[in-house]
């Protein structure tokens, strides 16, 4: 539906030239909840503003249903934005804010009134139509901003970190709310966030961005379980990085040799030749703590951090690497090891992910 191809945006010139976006290509499907995830300054907001029309890309094309979107000024694009600070018009009431887009489109009065009422119910703000935007809470402002952007029934809704100003509990409930709205309205959502949890819970697909380019695109589970490269593995969740050597690689399966000399099967995305030195990513919750004799790797338990639902074992492996194991607090083992003990660490075959260099 939205086809972004080869989009670059450079600011400045010569040595001061900064690439905010570097050859970004992605296609977003109809009725998809698509998330752009990355740290601040990674270019995710710039990409959103390119789609909205507030930033002209230096290179590349953006089309929507085969129409060239870049040829249209922002006010002619069938796209609406929920801004980070909501950008509600302070001189208008809640009702006037929601009606603004419809009035600009020249819709008949009766239709505007009807749509506004419908939107107020949709975002559960009915009965507050005549309040001033300064008289309602942050969460309510958020809902009004959503209703205002949804009222003209855009083909695509752009959301620029809309939940970042809300407190933890409200953010949780708005996450569910947003997903509900997207399913109910059938509108494509493009959601920008730096919060990995937000991205994982709501999205159909996630694009992880770093330094102006997209590093990996995929469903939340794939992004989490099979990170393509070190940045993605590091940015999303906690990860242990182990230096390994490829023994044999075939398709998506590989045999790797750990620092301890033991061998184990792992997943691989890219072609690696035998003998390559590379990095293996292992999630802390996928690993287990075992007696020294049973370990894939061995080391000294240097720290035990208690988190209530689980305990983190910080293990200094014999080859000098710090390895973290997350254990749910339901086994006796959790209490039997003590700081300073020598223990073993293991993880199932096929769970580790070989990273792209």
């Amino acid at each position, binding site marked *: 539906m939205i086809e972004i191809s080869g989009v670059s945006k450079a600011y400045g010139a010569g040595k001061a030239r900064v690439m905010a976006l570097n050859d970004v290509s992605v296609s977003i499907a109809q009725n998809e909840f698509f998330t752009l995830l990355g740290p601040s300054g990674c270019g995710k907001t710039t990409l959103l503003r390119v789609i*909205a*029309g*507030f930033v002209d890309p230096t290179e590349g094309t953006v089309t929507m249903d085969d129409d060239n979107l870049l040829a249209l*000024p*922002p*006010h*002619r694009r069938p*796209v*609406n*934005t929920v*801004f980070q*600070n909501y*950008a*509600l*018009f*302070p*001189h*208008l*009431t809640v009702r006037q804010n929601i009606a*603004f*887009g419809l009035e*600009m*489109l020249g819709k008949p009065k009766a239709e505007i009134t009807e749509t506004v009422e419908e939107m107020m119910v949709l975002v559960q703000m009915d009965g507050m139509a005549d309040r*001033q935007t300064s*008289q309602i809470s942050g969460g309510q402002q958020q809902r009004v901003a959503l209703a*205002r*952007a949804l009222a*003209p029934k855009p083909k695509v809704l752009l959301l620029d970190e809309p939940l970042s100003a809300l407190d933890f509990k409200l953010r949780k409930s708005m996450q569910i709310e947003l997903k509900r709205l997207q399913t109910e309205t059938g509108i494509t959502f493009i959601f920008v966030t730096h919060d990995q949890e937000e991205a994982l819970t709501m999205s159909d697909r996630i694009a992880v961005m770093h330094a102006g380019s997209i590093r990996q695109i995929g469903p939340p589970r794939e992004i989490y379980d099979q990170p393509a490269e070190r940045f993605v593995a590091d940015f999303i969740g906690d990860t242990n990085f182990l230096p390994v050597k490829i023994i044999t690689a075939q398709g998506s399966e590989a045999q790797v040799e750990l620092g301890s000399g033991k061998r184990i099967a792992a997943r691989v995305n890219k072609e690696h030749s035998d003998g390559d030195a590379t990095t293996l990513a292992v999630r802390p919750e996928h690993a287990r703590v075992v007696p020294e004799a049973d370990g894939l790797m061995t080391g000294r338990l240097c720290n035990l951090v208690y988190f209530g639902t689980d305990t983190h074992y910080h293990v200094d492996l014999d080859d000098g690497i710090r390895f973290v194991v997350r254990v749910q607090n339901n086994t006796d083992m959790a209490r039997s090891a003590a700081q300073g003990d020598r223990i073993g660490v293991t993880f199932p075959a096929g769970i580790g992910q070989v990273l792209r260099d």
Partner: protein
Amino acid sequence: MNDLARTRERRESRNRWLLLTPALVILIFAASGPLLITLVYSFLTAGDYGGIKWDFSTDAWFNVFFQRDIFDDTLSFADAHLSIFWRSVKLSLLTTLGAIVLGFPTAYFIATRPKHHRDFWMLLIMIPFWTNLLIRTFAVMELIRNEGTLNTLLMAISVIDAPLQILFSETAIIIGMLYVYLPLMVLPLYASMERLDFSLIEAGYDLYASRLAVLRRIILPLVKPGLIAGSILVFVPSLGAYVTPRVMGGGKQLMLGNLIELQFGQGRNWPLGAALSITLLAIVMVALLFYVRVAGRERGGHG
């Protein structure tokens, strides 16, 4: 205990009044005092060689609006005064309008520059403001007089054959006042535009508003306080302007300020001058009340 509290309260009250004294002195002697004297003078008789005689009379007020024919004693409106009133109000309104038309884009331009450039642009606006009024007025005169820069230039490129007579006209007065009072419009407008959240403008575009609609529906309502403040700041001094109409109007196109000066000078009619001054004040007050009412209703309408 009770006595102590009372003594302390009395001392605090005395201190408060002591601290207020400088402000009160200024208010009484510099603001209300002269105004009161002017009001009193307007009800006295004119002295033969200027000054006043302490005889009560309403002649001055009568003469502000009416005149008695010297020969047949018929009563008619004081056409000269009324036309000067009208000209003052008209030229001040046109100056205010011109200041809005020129000042609005200027303020918008400055407010949209990067932060560290804005001071420089504001300085350019302020420099003329710090220059002597008379010198600035003469500078404008040099620009538009018959042998001045504008006419020489236009004739050199053969746009006109004979010089345009701009100087000593109402247009000249407007140009002069516009130049002098423009910063007073730009400053408050800039102040309210600088506070303007530009994401609101983006939100407007995003919601299908054209450029004109964004200006009319979003920018104008939000910078209205600055627009009103600027209009008052330009309109009020324009109405009482003295130097600019004197120099640019060449003494032919009188405004209220010149008329008042005339009564205290050659006219030797201090009571009439005083009455005209109070009339000017009244016009300003009515204009301000109108502004406040309009501004107040707008704000009331939006809660």
